[in-house]
């Protein structure tokens, strides 16, 4: 052994005189790195309580706890972290669909009581609540898929040449992929008027079980193909994935499932007791609410007859919604399941006063779902000129096969779905279309997608245009005169109202004016003693929590009853009446009366 090797160990002593190897503890506290994973913080205003953090936590360290009342799109729950279990992996932060959850770079917290290490970030105040630094979501790393599988659609230039469906529909692979984006929080269920079991059927689609998906759908929607194509989809509005990305295409997925089957008869299995044998129910109006009542009562053994004034069931979804959105075969398929289930359908039959009196006498219950069929008028000078027409009449005539007199340049007055439908139908009939709407584009009640589609197809939209009058021109055309509007806010929180800017008149020379400003109820068919009891001053019908009107035994639903005027709300009304009618008839099974548990909450 050399001298060098013998002395080497002692060289360590030399270090006693050199600069300390470690850093001096100047401040008594060392700040965590900028993206340190420390104690949780949560922006509770942004948080929607979807529970994805609890779902992804592999340690089961997160509980969702109630801190507020739920509202649509926010469960009112907030995550509480148990630091006895947390491993600070921050998957909860990375998955958070709203981006509200984060971690501060604070890591020191001293407490004598071990149970204190459990708190609701953002609710239980902590010194690090406003920490700027710490682990946050970062662009480029997502644990959920924010991008919707694009829906194949007809080219806008091609669309107006045909009546073919604009939306082509997902392939199986596309549907499965889109379905796999769901985080199954279930916030959508509460937003859906009919409370469809959305996460459950989406999971079934993802797993490739279309039959199961269809049956889950049919549990509370008898017109899913219609909803799959044209639903107003409030569900997508509250989708947690939609907070930072594209909401799940819930509507298109429903559409995908329903399109997989040409005949529903042997696919949909209604596993319900036939409690209604021997009971008779008449339904006036074959729209979505009437169809709902008919189907769910028929499968329960009720003797159900629907009376419909038009040649086909479907109500507004038949005569209002154009075929490029909801083709006839789709409707017919759904109607066939109704007849297969034993519903009697009387079409081309308008119930009048005396017959109604008879129906009330002969049936255990009568359901009214006649909708809002009376178009409101422009009430501006020139409304009665030839060439001025109502969108509702025009659409109905078109759909029952009557010739519609549309030509040249058309102005459609209004901004709702009816206005858009009338515009796009007119386009396909060869017209050049402009929409004049009193409010701003953002105020348009029509579906955003519909508006986009219409514009893509070539519809021009003039917002804040108040129709003043219509005049005939010398060459037999029409001069649509309108004035610009300014928006005035009367009350905080209400939609601003348009106010005419006086002194300006704009002229638009057109061939047709189509009025689509709104519609009201028409009760002239109804016996006075009934109308008097059930209709309010606006003509709307009020019902109790069972869907029953003030006239005992008469139930109602649909646009007449709710003000939302969409099909899914009508279906929800129908569902309510189904329970109500069974209750009224004294045949409601106990379990349903108490309100059964949702199909698949348990994880």
């Amino acid at each position: 052994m050399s001298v060098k090797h013998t002395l080497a160990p002692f060289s360590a002593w030399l270090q006693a005189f050199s600069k300390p190897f470690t850093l001096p503890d100047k401040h008594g506290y060392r700040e965590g790195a900028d993206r340190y994973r420390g104690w949780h913080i949560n922006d509770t205003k942004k948080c929607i309580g979807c529970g994805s953090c609890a779902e992804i936590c592999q340690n089961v360290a997160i509980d969702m706890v109630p801190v507020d009342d739920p509202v649509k799109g926010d469960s009112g729950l907030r995550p509480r972290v148990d630091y006895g279990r947390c491993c600070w992996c921050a998957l909860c932060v990375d998955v958070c669909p709203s981006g509200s959850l984060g971690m501060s770079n604070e890591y020191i917290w001293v407490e004598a009581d071990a149970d204190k290490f459990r708190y609701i970030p953002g609710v239980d105040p902590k010194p690090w609540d406003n920490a700027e630094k710490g682990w946050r979501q970062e662009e480029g790393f997502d644990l959920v898929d924010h991008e919707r599988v694009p829906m194949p659609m007809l080219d806008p230039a091609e669309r107006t040449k045909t009546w073919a469906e604009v939306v082509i529909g997902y392939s199986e692979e596309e549907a499965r992929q889109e379905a796999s984006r769901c985080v199954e929080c279930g916030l959508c269920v509460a937003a859906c008027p009919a409370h469809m079991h959305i996460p459950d059927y989406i999971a079934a689609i993802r797993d490739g079980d279309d039959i199961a998906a269809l049956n889950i759908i049919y549990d509370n929607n008898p017109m899913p193909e219609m909803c799959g194509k044209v639903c107003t989809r409030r569900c997508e509005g509250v989708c947690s994935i939609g907070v930072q990305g594209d909401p799940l295409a819930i509507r298109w997925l429903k559409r995908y499932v329903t399109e997989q089957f040409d005949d529903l008869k042997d696919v949909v299995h209604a596993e319900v007791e036939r409690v209604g044998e021997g009971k008779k129910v008449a339904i006036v109006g074959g729209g979505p609410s009437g169809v709902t009542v008919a189907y769910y009562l028929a499968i329960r053994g009720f003797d159900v007859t629907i009376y419909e004034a038009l040649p086909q069931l479907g109500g507004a979804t038949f005569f209002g919604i154009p075929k490029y959105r909801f083709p006839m075969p789709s409707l017919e398929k759904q109607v066939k399941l109704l007849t297969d289930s034993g519903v009697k359908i009387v079409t081309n039959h308008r119930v009048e006063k005396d017959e109604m009196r008879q129906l009330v006498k002969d049936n255990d219950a009568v359901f009214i779902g006649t909708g809002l069929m009376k178009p409101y008028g422009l009430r501006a000078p020139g409304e009665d000129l030839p060439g001025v027409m109502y969108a509702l009449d025009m659409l109905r005539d078109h759909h029952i096969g009557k010739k519609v007199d549309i030509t040249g340049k058309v102005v459609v007055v209004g901004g709702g779905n009816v206005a858009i439908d009338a515009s796009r139908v007119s386009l396909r009939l060869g017209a050049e279309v402009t929409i004049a709407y009193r409010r701003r584009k953002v105020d348009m009640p029509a579906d955003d997608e519909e508006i986009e589609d219409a514009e893509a197809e070539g519809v021009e939209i003039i917002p804040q245009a108040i129709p003043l009058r219509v005049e005939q021109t010398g060459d037999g055309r029409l001069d649509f005169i309108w004035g610009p509007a300014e928006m005035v806010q009367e009350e905080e929180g209400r939609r601003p109202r348009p106010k005419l800017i006086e002194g300006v008149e704009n002229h638009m020379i057109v061939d047709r004016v189509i009025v689509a400003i709104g519609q009201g109820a028409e009760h002239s068919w109804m016996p006075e003693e009934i109308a008097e009891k059930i209709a309010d001053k606006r003509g709307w019908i009020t019902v109790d929590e069972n869907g029953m009107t003030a006239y005992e035994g008469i139930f109602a639903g649909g646009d007449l009853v709710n003000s939302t005027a969409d099909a899914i709300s009508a279906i929800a009304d129908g569902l309510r009446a189904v329970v109500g009618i069974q209750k009224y008839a004294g045949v409601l099974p106990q379990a349903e009366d108490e309100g059964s548990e949702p199909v698949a909450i348990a994880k």
Partner: protein
Amino acid sequence: MTTTETAELRRRVQLWFGPQHPGITGNMSVQAWLEGDTLTAGVTHVGYLHRGFEKLMERRRYIQSFPIVCRICVPEPDTNEYLLAAGLDELSGLAAEVPERGRWIRTLVLEMSRLQMNLMTLGGHIGAMAMGAAPNWLIAMRDFVLDRFEELTGGRIYHMFITYGGVRRDLPEGFAERMEADLEAIEEKLPLVDNVIFDSSVFRKRAIGVGVVPEEWVDEMSLSGPIVRAMGIPRDVRKDFPYEKYPELDFEVVTTTGSDIYARAWVRRQEIAQSIDLIRQILRKMPEGPYCAKLPNMLTWTIPPGQTYVRAEATRGEMGYYVVTDGSDKVRRVHVRAPSYVHGVALLERMIPGTNIADLAPLMVSFQVCPPEMER
């Protein structure tokens, strides 16, 4: 009691070495039989850390398994993270999507991990011989690397950073400069350490010619890592089964001869220098771009049925993951092939007879036995 009786009793002394952290290696124990100062036999006992990670993974979604695996080797967690990600990337088809920068950052993390683990183990080598100064310095150097881990991954020990499709975050602003400063600080101090380890008569006396592993055992027992390289065999997964960005890096497999504790320590010392060099190369070559592939919804992700074995060079030797999927959203089976599994049981038990009791701890450190990866 007669002298013969006492001698007889001494012959039959049975010693439990551990399970309270015998040296640097962690909680395990060796049940050893002594004759005088010499061990006649030994049996490795594990199970003190067992948390059943392989079983837990069968009950968790893929993304939920990801924070677990780092715990399979506490001081060098990143190899585990990489291997789980690599296995499932391969079986899911995500492997083709991992962006270039993601691969470079993965390689960076793996090499940083090797660096800090080797710094710590080198300290362990001499710590197991009851010398305190050098381990303190080496642990402090390791902490420089942990500082960089903290700013990159958000955690010092459990990084939970390499995941499916790439890594979780990009390099922070100015990372390369701070890393370089730390590397220089480490390089500056290393000669001090060399002086008190490799030049020290104490270490040389206790390490040279001690714990010699015969070359025939390599294939027979499937040995790997510094144990093999200390025999002069250039075997290294980074070269033999190249992964991530190692093929694009310029390095030679470190070898030496002697196959004793000294040789293994020397290999580790050279690999510290190698890692420093590799980290510099990586930071130089890393391109800009995305760091992670677009991931599917991790709450519902399913992977088609399949099985694979992926491997990487941990500082201890070949680490491998046998991964089986069955088409569901959870793994069917993950089985960790840990280097310590062979080195800490079969090899250690085979080496014990004839070893002096005082050499057992240095021997274990030189095999770098990591108990949690034996139990998983």
